[in-house]
């Protein structure tokens, strides 16, 4: 009760301030009137009575002040006064305020922007029911499973409170019936996915168990669409349920729409359409992966029973692992299959390829922007300190008049907090803009990150701002609290406080130099990595090739006539003016796809072994190819492909039209292959034999080509076998492959200009093929997005840090010169030369910068180990980077120190001495 009264009264005091003050004044006057009137009645003269009454009251203003101080919330009043005082002050020193607010806005904005991306990718939990009970199935590094394995797990679903599977890599569906591809991103999901997740439809229904039947449920195949796709494609039509949706030329029925907050299971990727696993053979036809025991494409998630721990669930699944293994064993290799123990892992934040890919770079950038903010804080602290010294006199006077030190410190902290608040407000604009820009840079695909300006973001911004205010506000506040009244009586220029300020400022500048050094090294490492990657010898002509992906899965094209059609396309394209050669391949360079097999090579000293781990099969993986493994990379190519990419043929012959399906198996290999399997000997005449089926034909090596990149730029030389397109076997892709890449070589260096004519040429042969075109150069820069982003961001932040350190150095040196004006004047009067004066000033700068560089190098050489895995072609301790960074910092430091040193040397001794 009492508390309510107090609050109400405090509110009245704050809101109706004027009125309350007026009332208080009235009451005091009434007291005086009444008291004076009494005294007059007792015979005192009116003027004297009034005077006595005022004395009795103890002064009108003093009495009012005592009442104010006694009220609850009096502290708020004080703070309010401090805030108003601070605002007046900041408004008066506009340049000072603007500089600080902008510095802070940049610092805080960068932090908020990066944090919002990290938050969305890494920290945010799935928008589903009780996500803490969701676990994901892994086995060592393995996170994907074959459908036969999933079916075995599904049959044992009672081990947990339901399990479901979905396609780990986004499927892409084509909405169009032919010609230009209209892709939507889709996900294959087992029918119980939404039920186990606890995602309720916002329209219609989600999947039912019957939907999972092979070939679709009783009412034909169905699809559930996302809110975003519903809005984008159907304009949010209420009657969308029941409508037909063409996916890869297969009609499906839309049965429901998921709620807005559910963006899918792979964070960072938007899903448009979910299709039950059972409908997969219907859409993918012969390429169906449902029964393949070697297609690892499903992620499996489970919901724990109430009270069940992840360890208990893991124990349960390991108990049945031998049976699962037995039931799903693929033909051929056996030893290592499913030998790693299965494990259920907490999955509350979902699985994301995007997250795996960007987590480390984002963490690095998060640290970088944190350091930049720290440097900014040091600069602001220095500015505040300089101003505090200017105000030292005012404070000493206030201290002498009885203000408490705490009170002065509080006022300074309030000023800092106000600056931080203004900076934080401005940073929200910068953050929003910067995070949009970053997300746009991350990838050109449909990267979808939900980055709302919500309370989380505001909260983080507020916390960063308060911490920043404390960091840059504490030093000046402490100095204020240390001042003594006697300082007011002394000449300011010679007081201890001023020299004390120089030592704090020196410390701050030293910190800045050290941190800038670390950031410069970081920027240097990433810049050099990017530069190295841009100049990796690709082994192919990056500027002349246009790639067109051809998708024949749903085209009007008989299986038997595919090969002939491809060949006709190649011949037709060759007739386009400006095309000098053309070739087809199963895998396009830099597409990220990998097709690898275990092989035996005649004459190789390698022993046949199954016992080495490595990615095997066809898929998108970034796992390295261990040198110890018998794995070789395969690609199927047509005649002309090697010439199209300008890869030199070093020995033997190229494959030709005569190497058809019926002729003897032949292959080209690259130098890396010869090195790995034959110790660098000429491979022509040797044979290659893939491990798995004993009956498969032996392939004869007929040519040696030079190394070229295939999977990523970071692997310029994977041991590769090029087999003729027409001789690719039925694994993993059936003959002839339904998806191929057509590469054409342009006579000019602008291959993109050929896009239209190539599409028209393909359309002449078959107008129902789906096409996607891009130049090799574009593909290259696309694959280097992460490296470019890291280099760009770390370089800009490193530059910013350097600039701020330079400003700090300049500031503290100028200040020190100013303090020593008299000393310098006397020295010069006594005959010191200008050079000697400059040396005097620069000695300090050299000491600061030198110490900073040494400290920075030490920290950088320790910290750079953590970015080692992001580098390419250089060590984390790359001496060139370290030396160049130190040199840059030394030069900038010299410039920042030279200006005030030069000014000191231009001092006019007579002027200085007459000022004394």
């Amino acid at each position, binding site marked *: *009760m*009492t508390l*309510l*009264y*107090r609050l109400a*009264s*405090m509110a009245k005091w704050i809101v109706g301030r004027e009125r309350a003050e007026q*009332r208080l004044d*009235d*009451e*005091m006057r*009434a*007291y005086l*009137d*009444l*008291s004076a*009137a*009494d005294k007059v009645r007792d015979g005192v003269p009116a003027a004297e009575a009034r005077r006595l009454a005022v004395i*009795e*009251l*103890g002064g009108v203003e*003093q*009495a009012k002040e*005592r*009442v104010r*101080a*006694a*009220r*609850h919330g009096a502290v708020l009043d004080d703070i309010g006064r401090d805030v108003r005082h601070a605002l007046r002050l900041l408004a008066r020193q506009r340049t000072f305020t603007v500089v600080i607010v902008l510095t802070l806005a940049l610092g805080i904005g960068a932090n908020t922007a990066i944090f919002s991306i990290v938050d969305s990718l890494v920290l945010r939990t799935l928008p589903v029911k009780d996500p803490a009970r969701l676990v994901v199935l892994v086995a060592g590094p393995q996170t994907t499973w074959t459908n036969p394995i999933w079916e075995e797990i599904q049959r044992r679903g009672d081990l947990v409170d339901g399990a479901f599977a979905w396609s780990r890599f986004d499927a892409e569906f084509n909405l169009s019936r032919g010609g230009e591809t209209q892709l939507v991103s889709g996900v294959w999901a087992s029918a119980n996915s939404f039920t186990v997740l606890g995602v309720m439809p916002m329209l219609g229904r989600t999947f039912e168990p019957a939907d999972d039947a092979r070939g679709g449920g009783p009412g034909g195949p169905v699809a559930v669409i996302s809110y975003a796709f519903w809005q984008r494609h159907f304009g949010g039509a209420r009657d969308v349920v029941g409508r037909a949706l063409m996916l890869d030329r297969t009609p499906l029925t839309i049965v429901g729409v998921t709620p807005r907050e559910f963006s899918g299971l792979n964070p960072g990727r938007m899903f448009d359409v979910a299709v039950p696993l059972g409908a997969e053979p219907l859409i993918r036809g012969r390429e169906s992966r449902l029964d393949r025991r070697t297609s690892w494409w499903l992620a499996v998630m489970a919901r724990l029973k109430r009270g069940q721990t992840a360890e208990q669930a893991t124990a349960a699944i390991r108990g049945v692992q031998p049976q699962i293994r037995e039931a799903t064993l693929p033909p051929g290799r056996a030893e290592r299959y499913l030998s790693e123990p299965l494990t259920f892992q907490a999955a509350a934040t979902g699985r994301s390829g995007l997250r795996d890919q960007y987590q480390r770079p984002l963490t690095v950038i998060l640290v970088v922007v944190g350091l930049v903010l720290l440097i900014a804080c040091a600069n602001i602290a220095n500015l505040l300190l300089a101003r505090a010294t200017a105000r030292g006199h005012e404070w000493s006077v206030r201290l002498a008049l009885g203000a408490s030190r705490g009170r002065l410190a509080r006022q300074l902290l309030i000023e800092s907090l106000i600056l931080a608040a203004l900076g934080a407000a401005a940073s929200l604009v910068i953050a929003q803009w910067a995070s949009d820009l970053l997300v746009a840079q991350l990838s050109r695909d449909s990267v979808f990150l939900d980055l709302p300006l919500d309370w989380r973001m505001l909260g983080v911004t507020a916390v960063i701002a308060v911490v920043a205010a404390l960091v840059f506000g504490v030093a000046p506040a402490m100095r204020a609290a240390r001042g003594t009244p006697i300082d007011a009586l002394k000449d300011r220029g010679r007081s201890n406080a001023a020299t004390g300020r120089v030592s704090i400022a020196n410390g701050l500048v030293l910190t800045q130099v050290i941190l800038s050094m670390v950031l410069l090294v970081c920027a240097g490492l990433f810049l050099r990595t990017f530069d190295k990657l841009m100049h990796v010898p690709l082994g192919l002509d990056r500027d002349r090739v246009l790639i067109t992906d051809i998708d024949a899965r749903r085209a009007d094209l008989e299986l038997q006539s595919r090969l002939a059609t491809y060949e006709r396309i190649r011949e037709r394209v060759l007739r386009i003016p400006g095309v000098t050669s053309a070739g087809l391949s199963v895998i396009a360079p830099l597409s990220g796809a990998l097709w690898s097999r275990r092989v035996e090579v005649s004459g190789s000293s390698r022993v046949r072994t199954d016992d080495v781990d490595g990615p095997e099969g066809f898929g998108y993986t970034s796992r390295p190819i261990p040198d110890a493994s018998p794995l070789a990379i395969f690609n199927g190519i047509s005649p002309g492909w090697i010439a199209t990419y300008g890869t030199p043929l070093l020995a033997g012959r190229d494959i030709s039209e005569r190497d058809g399906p019926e002729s003897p198996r032949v292959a080209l290999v690259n130098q890396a292959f010869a090195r790995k399997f034959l110790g660098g000997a000429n491979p022509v005449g040797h044979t290659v034999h893939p491990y798995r089926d004993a009956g498969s034909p032996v392939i004869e090596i007929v040519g040696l080509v030079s190394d070229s990149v295939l999977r990523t730029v970071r692997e310029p030389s994977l041991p590769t076998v090029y087999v003729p397109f027409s001789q690719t076997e039925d694994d993993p892709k059936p003959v002839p492959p339904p998806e191929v890449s057509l590469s054409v070589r342009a006579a000019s260096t602008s291959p993109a200009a050929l896009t239209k004519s190539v599409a028209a040429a393909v359309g002449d042969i078959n107008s129902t093929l789906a096409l996607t075109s891009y130049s090799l150069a574009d593909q290259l820069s696309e694959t280097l997005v992460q490296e470019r982003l890291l280099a760009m961001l770390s370089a800009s932040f490193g530059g910013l840090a350097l600039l701020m350190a330079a400003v700090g150095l300049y500031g503290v040196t100028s200040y020190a010169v100013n303090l020593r004006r008299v000393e310098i004047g006397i020295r010069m009067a006594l005959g010191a030369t200008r050079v000697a004066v400059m040396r005097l000033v620069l000695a300090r700068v050299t000491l600061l910068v030198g110490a900073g560089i040494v400290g920075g190098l030490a920290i950088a050489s320790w910290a750079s180990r953590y970015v080692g895995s992001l580098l390419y072609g250089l060590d984390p301790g790359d001496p060139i980077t370290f030396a160049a960074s130190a040199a840059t910092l030394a030069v900038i430091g010299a410039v920042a120190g030279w200006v005030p040193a030069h000014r000191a040397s231009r001092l006019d001794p007579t002027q200085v001495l007459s000022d004394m």
Partner: protein
Amino acid sequence: MDKLDIPQGTLELMILTILSREPLHGYGISQRLASLSHDNFQVNPGSLFPSLYRLEQDGKLKAEWRASENNRNAKYYAITAAGRKQLEQHRRRWDRISFAIASVLEGA
């Protein structure tokens, strides 16, 4: 005549007691306090008003502006139900204290 200092913590008790009879303005309270204490206590307005504001803020008193006996507009304080409850508590405590002190002094 020398005035006595008002013992710590008793000013509120006296204010509440005085106001429990009739509403009064600040000057009236100080006059009443002086006369009731036979001029032993002279409350300093610098302490009186802060106490009045606190009691009002806590809801023990409510205030109202009206004309005084000599037609001056003044702020009259009146005790509230919560104020009476507090008065009773304070009164009981004070009675115990004075009884205890008196007993000690007499027993000595």
